[in-house]
């Protein structure tokens, strides 16, 4: 662990344009602290950001970063990690980015279990496009495109992750800074795909899922006798929609990352200026 890296090293000099009070500030600060405290630095970190207010994180953090197209951040992170497993890969985006347009990738990224961290900055609304329903919006949440509410069950991202074979499933809250950092650190250190859904309230377009709401209703799993290695206990938490939880919900301690199972270990950026030795054998094979 290199102690000389401070979390501000992960901060770019670009001033965030998020609305004052936006939950994304806290989410990002926690990610930067967690990265620094787990011994990473901007030069070994690859950050992929989705599209949305949340996606702007790619500009406000300092690291090797790619701000991609809407909903496709996870595959970019997977490609980067497999091409150079020495990198610390972190992917961040909104609930629309991750569970609507990118839902297919979410399920498959979970299944694939590449060693990386995925933080969904969940505000239960579309922020950037100014307040439409998101897949995590409540059934009766009135928005410009859903005047009587979406009238559809919200996505349960943790349940999706568990069903897809997730090996690390957690929930944090952007304004509980200490716990948020703790949880992200644990996610970074998890060998495999670590999913952290982070409640990051939108103060401009969501007057239901507010700081007050989460503060009043969040149950911290750390303060209960929840055992995150117990899948059945995790299931109970995940399907208990009466309450909001924070903490590590499920963790599979036997997780082996995809790249280890596949024997992918090389930094693929390192190639010679000539074809690899033995390339002529590829031709001979066609005799």
């Amino acid at each position, binding site marked *: 662990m290199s102690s000389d890296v401070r979390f501000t090293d992960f901060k770019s000099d670009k001033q965030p344009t998020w609305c004052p009070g936006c939950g994304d500030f806290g989410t990002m600060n926690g990610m930067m602290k967690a990265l620094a405290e787990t011994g990473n630095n901007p*030069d070994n970190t690859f950050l992929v950001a989705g599209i949305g207010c949340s996606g702007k994180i790619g500009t406000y953090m300092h690291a090797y*970063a790619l*701000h991609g*197209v809407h909903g496709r951040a996870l595959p970019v992170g997977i*490609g*980067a990690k*497999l091409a150079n497993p020495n990198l610390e890969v972190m992917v961040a985006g909104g609930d629309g980015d991750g569970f609507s347009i990118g839902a297919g990738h979410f399920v498959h990224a979970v299944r694939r279990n590449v060693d990386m961290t995925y933080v969904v900055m969940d505000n239960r609304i579309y922020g950037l496009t100014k307040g439409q329903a998101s897949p995590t919006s409540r059934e009766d949440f009135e928005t410009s495109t859903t005047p009587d509410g979406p009238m559809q069950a919200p996505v349960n991202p943790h349940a999706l992750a568990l069903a897809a074979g997730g090996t690390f499933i957690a929930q944090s809250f952007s304004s509980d800074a200490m716990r948020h950092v703790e949880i992200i650190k644990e996610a970074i250190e998890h060998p495999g795909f670590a999913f952290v859904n982070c409640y990051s309230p939108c103060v401009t377009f969501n007057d239901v899922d507010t700081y007050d709401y989460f503060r009043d209703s969040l149950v911290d799993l750390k303060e209960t006798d929840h055992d995150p290695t117990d899948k059945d206990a995790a299931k109970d938490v995940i399907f208990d929609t009466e309450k909001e939880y924070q903490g590590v919900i499920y963790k599979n301690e036997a997780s082996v990352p995809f790249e280890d199972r596949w024997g992918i270990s090389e930094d693929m950026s390192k190639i010679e200026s000539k074809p690899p030795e033995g390339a002529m054998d590829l031709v001979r094979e066609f*005799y």
Partner: protein
Amino acid sequence: MPEDLNWAIGGEAGDGIDSTGKIFAQALSRAGRHVFTSKDFASRIRGGYTAYKIRTSVDRVESVVDRLDILIALTQRTVEENMSELHEGSVIIYDGERTTMKDFEAPEGMIGLNVPLRRLAEEAGGAIMQNIVALGAACEVSEFPIENLDESLEKRFGAKGGSIVENNSKAARKGQEYVRENYDLDLDYELETTDEDYVLLNGDEAIGMGAIAAGCRFYAGYPITPATNVMEYMTGRVEQFGGAVIQAEDELSAINMALGAARAGARAMTATSGPGIDLMTETFGLIATSETPLVITNVMRSGPSTGMPTKQEQGDLNQMLYGGHGEIPRFVVAPTSISECFHKTVEAFNLAEKYQTPVYLAADLALAVSEQTFPPEEFDMDAVEIDRGKVVDDETVGDWVNDKQQFKPHALTEDGVSPRAFPGTKGGAHMSTGLEHDELGRRTEDTDMRVKQVDKRNRKVQTAIENEDWSPREFGDADSENLVISWGSNEGAMREAMEFLEEDDVSVRFLSVPYIFPRPDLTEEIAKADEVIVVECNATGQFANLIEHDALTRVKRVNKYNGVRFKADELANEIKAALDEPVEATA
């Protein structure tokens, strides 16, 4: 044209047509003969008719012709499907003991060889070897030394151990003897053998091999005909060189994985066909804007929509040239032959990295599913150069920072090309985005910077136009008044068509264009010619339109879009017709 023999085996899907055909093709290749193979699927959707065709000669062959000399017909349908290619003296080998073939009679003028394939196979050890019995019969007909089959059988079945190779070899000889004893044939095919050693491969394999040779270590893809073979080829091979092949959940994911790997510094590729390109198009713009080098292979098939998935077409030219919103700098390279699939893939990787621009590698079904023999030197690994362009390391990163020590991945340079720092490079951390950005990669809507970045990206293309060789491949009579131009896979058919044309004293100059964008300026060549004909496999003449636009002129067009590639003799007739030369009726 070469002194060739045209051979085919046809039946139903599941009859082992492909593997039998391949065994014969390999036997011919091992015997020092040139081979060009093609696969046939019925244009009508009923049953599962399939055929494997081989054209062989001691001279190089790079096309198919409209003629069939020996046909192994496992079904009546096989004969019907190939009626137009069969001619007087064609030999049809069939098993009259097979219920479906018991009333079969060879058409007038053709030679029917009724060989009890199944019975002889059973005698040799199992009915499963009936196709091999037919191969033995074909060896007898074509006077091809049967020993050559043995090596090929060894290659195919050797790993299975036991007496499989031996039994198959016995089965082949039973077929040979049966024909020898029961028919008195007076044909003189006499398939000579030579001491040459050839390799036999298809276009998808050549692309995969080119990619590995060029240092590609990361491949992500989603299965789609006819591009899947690229992925299957690379699987198990690129790993030997420290790489990986990932089957993504869809093409959106595939291209984004490849993009991620490229950002991490790997040479990365994805391959797909039209429907996959549709899905990848949004990310294509991101790749260009973030200045990420990536090779996207499009093995074209017939469209639009699901179209005819197993049929030939060059219908995606406009899509690759113009696809995506906004104005996207790009390169579009179209290999003109199976061996060029190898060379152009290498070139595509160098172009992508030197100019940090996405490259479409535009192959098509005709290249992908055909195999051709080549002297192995044609894939000379020593000649392959890998040029990674402007990559900085821990030491040189400092040459490209601003006064706050921030690295400038989109630095405004004279040639338009900026430095690249792979993650892990100390002091190189930076952001990249599909948003318009400044030199640091940070979002901007500054009008001045917007124009500068657009110009810079376009300047890279201009630099490439000036620094790289975009010449067409030239064949035929340089002084001819007749100019034929084609792009991509039509080269082989056209080169052989020229030999037919020569026989009829029709001279042509042929320019085969492997570069769609940037592309050679053919204005002068066109001005010199009296007649200009553009040949391509699509209905609307997408390339001809470009040529007309470039040279401010009108050209004649030869288009084919029924799903079948051009055949050399057919194309010769089309050219003659376009030149108002008399065309004789074909067989």
